[in-house]
């Protein structure tokens, strides 16, 4: 995928000026937040479940290699195959091999962010295999040649008129005068078209929300049922999952599942939670003949044992971006790579390098709403701050910013000089503000005054007045 994270500021500016996008984002600002709040309030055990979910994942991470090996041996005893991929390229190659061996011409795909992370679609297309996204949102953006702008609502940036135009453009075999005025008719059209693709596909590729070590089971959580048709109908089912998706037992999975849908869409339970343990058994009338699990590392093992380990608890619910004022303002594409919002601001520098992704963890007000709603209690602002620390110590912070900061810190460590400077500033700004008590222009503060006035001080500092007031230069009143 083409990376535009280094141009984050320009991306954001364009997003803010995009009226259509801004209209679409109003859905995120309201719907997701209200629904999650309602679902969380309706379950008295919700907070305790969050604690337990985080504890389960912490335990998994501390014993990750052992759980992966147990998972692998159970997949094998279920008749499946496990493939290990250290990098995105390894994963792409392994999947292509499986598809080639199956003689695949088309593959259907359930929604998978890992597939986006490794750029699977483009790769398969170039290899002459047609990937067909079957989640409605993913299907829409595939038609548009776009990437998801949200990890659980990939087409949240698209409005209905655009979907209608795309369907007209692509579904040319359908009568041009067909009814397309309601979302229902668009859904029906997609259902009809994709039904045919499901039945004809040679290979079905899905992601996984959980990998259960105890039983070698992979699990997908969906609402549409596309993931199930993707994995049930073709001859070969390929699961692509990252290594941190492991949970020890079915009980542990159930615990995390309880906080997943509530945090994501505000549902108490998603419509379909599907547990898959290997290929078709003797006597099974349906199901795939082959079952493959591709386990992707792609840099995750580097996060283990570092300050970023907490991020590996993430279950990709999207609550952080649903509650993020920055995401609300600019949408997901401005982040410039696969993962947007607060979780993306932590992950992106890890995956594409802090030189390219460093803007993202800086573009946060640290309002803490993401951490407040994260079902896995990931301290997202803290992790973003860690990236800023790495940038600062690695001298990647913009030089002007670094100079200003250093000058300010130098002053802040010298109280006497600092107080002279603040007294002068209080006086100067007060004069500038005059009777209005504000100014619309301030030297070196154009970024502030371009959009808002600068309220001006009262004329002298508190500490200067306090000294006068108490008649003392001492340390206390």
């Amino acid at each position, binding site marked *: 995928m083409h990376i535009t994270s280094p141009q984050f*500021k320009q991306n954001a500016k364009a997003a803010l000026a995009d009226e259509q996008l801004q209209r679409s984002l109003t859905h995120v600002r309201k719907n997701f937040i209200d629904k999650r709040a309602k679902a969380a309030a309706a379950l008295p055990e919700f907070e305790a479940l969050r604690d337990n979910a985080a504890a389960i994942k912490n335990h998994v991470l501390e014993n990750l290699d052992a759980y992966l090996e147990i998972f692998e041996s159970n997949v094998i005893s279920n008749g499946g195959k496990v493939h290990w991929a250290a990098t995105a390229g390894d994963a792409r190659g392994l999947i292509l091999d499986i598809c080639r061996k199956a003689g695949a011409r088309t593959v259907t795909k359930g929604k998978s962010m890992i597939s986006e992370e490794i750029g699977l679609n483009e790769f398969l297309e170039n290899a002459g295999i047609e990937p067909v996204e079957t989640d409605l949102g993913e299907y829409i953006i595939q038609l548009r040649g776009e990437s998801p702008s949200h990890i659980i609502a990939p087409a949240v940036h698209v409005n209905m008129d655009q979907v209608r135009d795309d369907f007209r453009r692509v579904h040319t075999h359908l009568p041009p005068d067909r009814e397309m005025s309601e979302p229902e008719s668009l859904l029906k059209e997609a259902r009809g078209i994709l039904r045919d693709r499901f039945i004809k596909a040679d290979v079905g590729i899905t992601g996984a929300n959980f990998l259960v070590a105890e039983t070698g089971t992979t699990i997908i959580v969906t609402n549409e049922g596309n993931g199930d048709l993707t994995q049930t109908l073709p001859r070969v089912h390929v699961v692509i999952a990252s290594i941190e998706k492991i949970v020890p037992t079915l009980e542990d999975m159930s615990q995390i599942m309880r906080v997943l849908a509530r945090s994501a869409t505000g549902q108490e339970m998603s419509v379909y939670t599907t547990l898959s343990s290997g290929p078709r058994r003797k006597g099974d009338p349906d199901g795939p003949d082959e079952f493959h699990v591709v386990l992707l590392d792609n840099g995750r093992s580097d996060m283990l044992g570092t300050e970023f380990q907490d991020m590996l608890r993430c279950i990709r619910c999207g609550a952080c971006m649903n509650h993020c004022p920055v995401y609300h303002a600019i949408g997901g594409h401005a982040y410039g790579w696969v993962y947007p919002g607060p979780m993306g601001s932590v992950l992106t520098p890890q995956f594409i390098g802090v030189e390219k992704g460093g803007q993202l963890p800086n573009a946060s*007000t640290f309002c803490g709403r993401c951490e407040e709603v994260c079902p896995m209690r990931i301290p997202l602002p803290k992790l973003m701050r860690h990236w800023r620390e790495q940038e600062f110590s690695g001298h990647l912070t913009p030089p002007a910013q670094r100079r200003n900061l250093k000058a300010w810190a130098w002053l*802040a460590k010298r109280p006497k000089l600092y*107080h002279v400077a603040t007294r002068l500033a*209080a006086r100067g700004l007060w004069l500038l503000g005059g009777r209005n008590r504000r100014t619309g222009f301030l030297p070196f*503060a154009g970024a502030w005054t*371009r959009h808002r006035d600068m*309220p001006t001080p009262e004329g002298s*500092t508190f500490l200067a007045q306090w000294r006068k007031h108490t008649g003392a230069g001492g340390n206390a009143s």
Partner: protein
Amino acid sequence: MSQPVKVGLFVTCLVDLFRPTVGFAAVKLLEEAGCEVHVPVSQTCCGQPAWNSGDRDDTADIAKEVIKAFEDFDYVVAPSGSCAGMLSKHYPELFEGVQVWDERSRAFAAKVHELVSFLTDVMGVQSVEARLDATVTYHDSCSGLRELGIRAQPRKLLQSVEGLELKEMNNANVCCGFGGTFAVKYSDISNAIVTEKTGNIDKAEADLLLAGDLGCLLNMAGKLRRSGSKTEVRHVAEVLAGMIDTPPIGGKG
């Protein structure tokens, strides 16, 4: 009679520079609650700009000075949830595993409180002696709300102000887009967020906007004045202390 409670007032750099009235309002409220207020005059800033820019070394230098200047008081109080959060939550994080300072910063952090929640939760203040004939709306600043759990306390004390009517705005708990240096580094995004915020403030149709953090107040006041809104802006302590002779932040609406 027991010894009076000795409080060290951490004024905060923004109050010191922009709004001394808030400092004096804090002193008045603390004294009325029975505290003996001390103001170490060597104080500058809590170090947040450095901390949030990833500059740990400068943050640690500044933090050590703050701790030294304040650790002998019974309590340390700041008229800001953001600075109080820095002192009480982030100093221990900063010094985690650092000899001597780990323990010392945690002992210090345990004494730190934001002004309004200190009055209600520690000093047991139930009401204030103040009067203001106005409708007000209250913005929950992020650090105070999420790091320190400040929500009910300011509302409770505001209800006791004679003549004051509280009108809640939509999304009072959503960020105003200030975020310290964020407002300058990402000014376009910050503007979009504060525009959303001031839209909600305007819809509340209150005479006065209050909050507990001067950074947010400067941001919202700057936007409200630029957009020609009628709502005026003050720090919550000014109203609770009845100190409203100073013109509002950013002047009149």
